């Protein structure tokens, strides 16, 4: 049972480039989330989804997009990367209560 998987683990982007962070879960959870973690700031919610075809903005959605075509997958798209998007990104899926997190993607934009 893989749980929540994320790829890539690390990535360096140049300013203005685009990329997609992949997230998949095999627990058949309806809820999925994308967070960014910055030092001393805790986790901030970027986008979330309550089921396939349904997505909604969190606290810090600007500069990001998501899609949810299947229950399993919830990719996060960065368009026109900026240095402010340097962070560690975590995907999570959830039962009605607790969340299960992936290992994270460390992204640097230079």
């Amino acid at each position, binding site marked *: 049972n893989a749980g929540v998987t994320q790829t890539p683990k690390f990535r360096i982007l140049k300013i203005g480039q685009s990329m997609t962070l992949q997230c998949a879960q095999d627990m058949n959870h309806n809820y999925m989330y994308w967070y960014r973690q910055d030092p001393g700031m805790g986790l901030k919610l970027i986008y979330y989804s309550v089921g396939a075809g349904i997505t909604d903005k969190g606290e810090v959605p600007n500069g990001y997009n998501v899609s949810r075509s299947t229950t399993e997958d919830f990719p996060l798209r960065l368009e026109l990367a900026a240095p402010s998007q340097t962070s560690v990104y975590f995907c999570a899926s959830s039962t009605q209560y607790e*969340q299960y997190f992936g290992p994270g993607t460390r992204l640097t934009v230079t």
Partner: protein
Amino acid sequence: AQSVAQPEDQVNVAEGNPLTVKCTYSVSGNPYLFWYVQYPNRGLQFLLKYITGDNLVKGSYGFEAEFNKSQTSFHLKKPSALVSDSALYFCAVRVGNQFYFGTGTSLTVIP
């Protein structure tokens, strides 16, 4: 607005001593409260939750937490700390479909 506060950035405790990591919250309605632990270069791991019922909830690795509605607190506790408990701890509250996290408390257990 929903919020979670962890007033201590850093907590140091000697091995074998009891530990407490503090959390207070501000939400409308009844809160669903959680504690997570994060080890270096890893994702967050679920420790325990309070949904309803007994104010003292027990979780993984010998941790427990006490829900106090009047003080809007949900402090994490352990009777006897281990060096392996050293990690970053996050308190979180679920409101609707969203989770709100505190800024984290770094726990160091000194041998």
